[in-house]
């Protein structure tokens, strides 16, 4: 696992839509690969390209607009990442170059998948999102600073706080190997197994 996230500053891409599901983030035809990398070019495939072979970009889709190239923060709306459990969704966002996602809310499985991939999901209120969208739609170069340690999002003279569970924050800050940590509790897991009634043992 990579080293942790602390402070990230970058420009943002405004995807002003609610309920963006994982089939939109990365459609099924790209899920047959057996690796974790190389999904960025297929991110938002159906919206991003006018053809199946990814040769003709859709000029109306925000990802293809010149002013938003190089953005590392994605702004979106409620229930982002709903649908399937495919971890290919955060893999594709990460591979494209996003480091932080800011939305009104996230679907549960997707949120956990982001944490496990060092992609920071930040939840703000609808009103706060309205303000961020207004800024970024007016000035694509606006620099947004997301500070995980102090749990804040800052742009121009605005500053918003956000909540995140302590265990998620620690994992993101330190870039911890979650499996390695749990393996240290091996004795406790064995004790739990030994305590199961015989019929529940594998």
């Amino acid at each position, binding site marked *: 696992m990579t080293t942790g996230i602390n402070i990230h500053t970058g420009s943002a891409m405004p995807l002003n*839509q*609610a*309920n963006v*599901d994982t*089939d*939109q983030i990365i*459609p*099924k*035809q790209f*899920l*047959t*690969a*057996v*690796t*974790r990398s190389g999904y960025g070019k297929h991110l938002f495939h*159906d919206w991003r390209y006018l053809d*199946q072979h990814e040769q003709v970009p859709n000029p109306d889709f925000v990802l293809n607009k010149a002013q938003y190239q190089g953005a590392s923060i994605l702004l979106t*709306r*409620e*229930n982002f990442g*709903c*649908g*399937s*459990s*495919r*971890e290919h969704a*955060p893999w594709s966002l990460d591979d494209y170059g996003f480091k932080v996602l800011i939305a009104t*809310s996230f*679907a*549960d*499985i997707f949120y*956990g*998948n982001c944490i*496990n*991939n060092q992609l920071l999901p930040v939840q703000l209120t609808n009103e706060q999102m309205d303000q961020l969208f207004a800024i970024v739609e007016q000035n694509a170069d606006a620099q947004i600073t997301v500070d995980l340690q102090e749990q804040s999002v800052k742009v121009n003279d605005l500053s918003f706080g956000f909540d995140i*569970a*302590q*265990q998620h924050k620690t994992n993101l800050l330190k870039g911890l190997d*979650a*499996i390695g940590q*749990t*393996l240290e*509790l*091996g004795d*406790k*897991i064995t004790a*739990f*197994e030994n305590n199961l*009634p*015989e*019929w*529940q043992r*594998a």
Partner: protein
Amino acid sequence: MATTLYDKIWQAHIVEAKKTAETGEEGLMYIDRHLIHEVTSPQAFAGLDDKNRKVRCPQRTFATMDHSISTRSLALDACGPTNKLQLQTLAENCEKHGIELFPVGHQKQGIVHVMGPELGLIQPGMTVVCGDSHTATHGAFGALAFGIGTSQVEHVFATQTLKQSKAKSMKVQVNGSLPIGITAKDIILAIIGKIGHAGATGHVIEYCGEAISGLSMEERMTVCNMSIEAGAKAGLIAPDQTTFDYLQGREYAPKGDHWQQAIDYWSTLVSDANASFDTVVELKAADITPQVTWGTNPGQVIGVNQAVPSPGDFTDPIDKDSANKALSYMDLTPGQKLSDLSVNNVFIGSCTNGRIEDMRAAAAIAKHGKVAQGVTAIVVPGSVSVKAQAEAEHLDKIFIEAGFEWRLPGCSMCLGMNDDILTQGDRCASTSNRNFEGRQGRGARTHLVSPAMAAAAALAGHFADVRDYQ
């Protein structure tokens, strides 16, 4: 203190508990059953191998091939070399780590959420995970079952545990008995329509009430399966005699003395009468009509005789915007009647509706006529076992006679990871679980319905009220 069914299962599986004022209860949860398939496991196995880690409990882990396989051929390369590589990778990984695999052609192969229950692998009070969001299906047994990402699949492989935060609880009570012609699919679509596509985010749902306890196990699986479509972490139904009767004698269910010990424990798995829930939702079964989704998420649903809504019907600006986008993608006009809407594809199958009772319900309608001209209708049983049972009952003959195609088991057109995909502008009556844009093929339009409604649409060539056949 009075506790819910969810509290009880949580409590019985916490290896190490943590409680913080800020985030509530957290803990390391023991996982009793881990189901895997070809799509979400290869990177997890690769992660294990990178660090020279082993699968801690291969005997608690079962694998099947379902997503990337053909429904016309048993050949692994029938859908191309990439699919073949993924299927072979699963076989190699299972072999290497000592995990039992039910590959294509095996008697026990099937969609992971059909195969698990029919073998008795899923039992009340278990914690069940799979790298697949429809793992919620198994909550029908009173098991805490939820979908996980590939990093978590790797975590379960290595440790047989997962770090978890306690979710909120939601009670969804469906009162009264179900009207004739109304199915489990209509119940769950009506629930999602009421609470919304993200209405249960952060919650574990417990379904209860007369209309729920009257359901068969297969119907309960249909209800729990789509819990994720309301955003829920999991859906639960308390185990009862229906559950025990279903499990008794199944291959992996407890036997002999263990059976009675299991029943004794399983009988304790109910929410206490005065247990409190964070959210309570009630529906009247009598109000539920055959449901059809009109939009691009499962919460955008109406009764078959209702008119397609207008964006103006929604007060929330986000719902209004979603309705606008959905109407445009689905090529619908506000006020339109669903019975005027032609379909050119019908899909009967999936982990939601690919079980024997679903096959029977669809066949009972199919025998009334012929698939309408211009409609392609496919029936895909959920497992080899479902297929064999359906054929023993000659349901395959009814389907074929009526003009449906009778296929081999798999996930098929629910998500189209094989060649069962629709093309631009196709309109499909589908018994699957997601009507997202492009889900069944780029530019294709999906309407979610019950198996009987799908069969009725196939015969009519447009949506039709299945109650007219009764």
